[in-house]
């Protein structure tokens, strides 16, 4: 009994010794690490810039009406950046009902007004998700000592969604004009006055353009061995040229390509990427192929705060290609209806609607379309597009009825079957039920319908692939396996049975 309690004491003593030691070491370590941490010294310099990366509204300056001191280019750049940041922190403030960053871009008096607004919204549990897409500041006045600016920001195009208790009350576009005074205070241009003024009605957007779709025989194109990866480090013009020649010889006159949003650097598209894109169009031009460019591949955010970024991306790509003779038109987004559920239908449609309007100003000369995933989805935004695109992977016998419904709803807008095809996959996952012959038979049926309707169409696709990236159809092996065999050439580059079907003139 005694020895047992002795052992117990020993054990207790030992454990407490270990615990006390542990606590001391922990204490020293905590103290040491506390003394070694602190604010990053560079924060003393008040450097800004991290805000920039997610907000890229279009800013069009008008400097012709200016009074006072002539504006310097350097100052204008700084002014624009700070003014943009002011709008960004304002929208973040309204979203989070938080004062973060407002100190840097609003003077004390102006800040007070913003705080009042935020307090009002905090009390009523209101949050506002907003962005501005376009600013047209007209510089009115620049003071002689270079420290005060007055500008009129005409027709600021924005979008905002307002929530109460977390549920959306209203969302929609805004078009407002503001008169703004900015002061240069310790290196920041800060908003001193922000007054909303009546906005001039906007001239009618660009009139509808003329274009022709002479029953295109097209194909959705990715090179062999590079599924969903036309551009980037593996970009291979020789391979593309060979494929384009094959396509031209097989009687195709158009290709549909995809511009990946993130791989193209989102808002800031590098010149290398644009160069590759131009080269693809160049190669297509050499084979008399017209190119339908699909934007925003693998994009799926649609968040209002992300809109400016996507629009800058599109504008850059459009500006790079809009004068190219091989450009057929723009497909704004591939199968956006598949994002309706996860991202909100209104959100997706509003994003597309605004994008289409902007596209018309950036490139008034090429037609727009949206690559809806089914004939039923294709009636969305039919007024916004120049031709209606739909994809069809269903049974051939259902096509006619579904097509007729769309035809009726579409009015006189041209229709394009922008994707169709069938996998020749035959293996474990579909119990060896597919075959090249079945693929050929499917395509033959669809081809006859296309011929009958004189429908422009884009086949999916030229090559079979060894691999399909996860981001295309997910990780599930039966989906990936199926997706690999849509080509009319097998992985070796040999024509499959379907090749003859689709290439007959």
């Amino acid at each position, binding site marked *: 009994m005694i020895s047992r309690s002795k052992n117990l004491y020993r054990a207790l003593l030992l454990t407490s010794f270990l615990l006390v030691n542990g606590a001391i070491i922990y204490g020293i370590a905590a103290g040491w690490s506390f003394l070694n941490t602190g604010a990053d010294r560079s924060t003393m310099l008040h450097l800004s810039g991290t805000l920039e990366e997610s907000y890229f509204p279009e800013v069009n300056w008008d400097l012709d009406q200016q009074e*006072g001191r002539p504006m310097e280019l350097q100052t204008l750049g700084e002014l624009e950046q700070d003014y943009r940041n002011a709008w960004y922190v*304002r929208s973040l*403030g*309204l979203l989070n009902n938080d004062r973060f960053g407002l100190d840097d871009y609003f003077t004390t*008096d102006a800040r*007070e*007004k*913003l705080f*009042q*607004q*935020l*307090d*009002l*919204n905090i009390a*009523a549990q*209101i949050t*506002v998700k*907003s962005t501005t897409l376009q600013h047209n500041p007209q510089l*009115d*006045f620049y*003071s*002689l*000592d*270079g*420290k*005060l600016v*007055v500008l*009129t920001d005409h027709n600021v195009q924005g979008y*905002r969604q*307002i929530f*109460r208790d977390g549920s*959306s*009350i*209203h969302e*929609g576009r*805004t078009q*407002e004009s*503001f*008169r703004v*005074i900015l*002061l240069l205070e310790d290196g920041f241009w800060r908003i*001193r*006055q*922000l*007054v*909303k*003024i*009546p906005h001039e009605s906007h001239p009618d957007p660009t009139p509808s353009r003329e274009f022709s779709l002479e029953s295109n025989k097209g194909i959705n194109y990715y090179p062999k061995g590079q599924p969903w990866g036309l551009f980037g480090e593996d970009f291979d013009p020789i391979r593309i040229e060979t494929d384009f020649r094959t396509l031209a010889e097989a009687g195709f006159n158009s290709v549909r390509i995809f511009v990946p949003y993130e791989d193209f650097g989102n808002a800031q598209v590098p010149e290398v990427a644009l160069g590759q894109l131009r080269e693809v169009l160049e190669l297509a031009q050499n084979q008399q192929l017209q190119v339908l460019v699909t934007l925003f591949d693998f994009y799926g955010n649609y968040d209002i705060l992300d809109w400016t970024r996507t629009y800058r991306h599109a504008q850059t790509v459009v500006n790079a290609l809009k004068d190219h003779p091989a450009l057929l038109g723009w497909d704004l987004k591939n199968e956006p209806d598949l994002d309706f559920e996860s991202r909100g239908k209104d959100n997706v449609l509003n994003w597309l609607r605004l994008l289409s309007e902007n596209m018309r100003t950036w490139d008034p000369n090429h037609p727009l379309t949206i690559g809806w995933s089914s004939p039923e989805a294709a009636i969305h935004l039919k007024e916004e597009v120049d031709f209606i695109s739909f994809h069809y992977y269903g049974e051939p016998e259902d096509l006619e009825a579904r097509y007729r419904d769309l035809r009726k709803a579409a009015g006189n807008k041209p229709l394009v079957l922008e994707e169709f095809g069938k996998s020749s996959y035959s293996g474990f996952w579909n119990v060896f039920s597919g075959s090249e012959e079945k693929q050929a038979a499917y395509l033959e049926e669809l081809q006859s319908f296309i011929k009958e309707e004189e429908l422009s169409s884009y086949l999916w696709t030229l090559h079979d692939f060894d691999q399909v990236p996860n981001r295309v159809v997910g990780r599930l092996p039966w989906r990936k396996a199926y997706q690999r065999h849509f080509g009319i050439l097998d992985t070796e580059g040999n024509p499959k049975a379907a090749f003859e079907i689709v290439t007959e003139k």
Partner: protein
Amino acid sequence: MINRCWHSIVLLCFLLACGESKVTTEDIAEGPYALQTEVTFIAGAPITLEFSGTPSDQLVLLVDNAWGSTLLAPDDSKSVSFSLPAALAQKAGLSNWYLVAGQTVLDSGEYTILPAKPPMPTLETYIGPPSIFANGLDQSMLVALPQDQYGNALQDSTPVRIRTLFRNQQEETRVNVNRLIAYDYIATRPQAGELFIAASADTQVSKELTVRVLASLPTDFEIEAIREHTYADGNQIVTLRTSPIQDSNGNSIADGTLVNFQVKNILGPALHAQGQTVNGVARANLLHPQQADTWEVSAYISGLAKSNSIGLEFEPAVADFSLLLSGDGRELQITSIQSYMEQLIPDGLTVSLTILDAMGKPLYTDQSRTFAGKASFDLTLESIEDASVYRISVGGVTKEIIP
């Protein structure tokens, strides 16, 4: 079993139907709504937007103003009216409103709030640049931001009075607010001095603002030299002094302007001195030369102005001296160095020795300084080995001695 299944399906459908009907807006927002009130208000006054139509607690008024968006609930359940909280009612400018129920906009429009009548007591002003030159070209600028008591910019064409005072002379101009601000250029004055500026708009007054008018660029000037005597004794000081340097309007240039003095002697550019102006005058001091010389002195302010050139003659200070060589020939003494009044030369004048060989080629040179009218050289054996002549020169007078 089948029956029960049917029951549950029917029940499910019923529940779904109920759920559906709750979110429709038809029963909450009936009939047309129309704004009954004015759409122009004065900031700070109570503002209520009243609508005709059926009251419903589902109605909300969405308001977009310059500072953001917010939602207002109806004041009570009996009417369709919305009172703006102070935070909205005090902010002048345009606002858009949307009457919303569910997700539907029933009516929309805009209202304008004008700045309030009583202005802020002080007028917000900015002036710059704070100092300008009296050159007839420079100007400064006053920017005024007249505001009402809530900090709203006053409307266009609000008059602003700008008064300036310079050398007790008062002037007044009037400008109007245009695009939130009123501004005016403040022209420079021909004289340097302090320019006082004040602005007012109605009862709103600014603080006292000042702009300093500075003399502009210096014009050419004169210099003079002041010295106690004309002898080259290497001891006295020549003071070089400029005339008061002025700009083209006769304003004394800024204190601290650097003036360079340059001296050329008979051998070429020799001496250089600098002085900074005080009340327009700069001075620099130089030692007299140690032997007779002719100086040509001029001054300039780099890149801006220059002076005339003056000549200075220095007469020899040393009249005569004696040489004495010790018996062993190792010590050479120079004594009785007399100055221009036969007084002993002041201490510190340079004495130079050159030892020449028989061919007149210098073998050795050395320097010493006078002390109590004397100087001496201790000669080493090597230096006097082939010596044939010792040449001594003091204050421009040279004598020779043969060992």
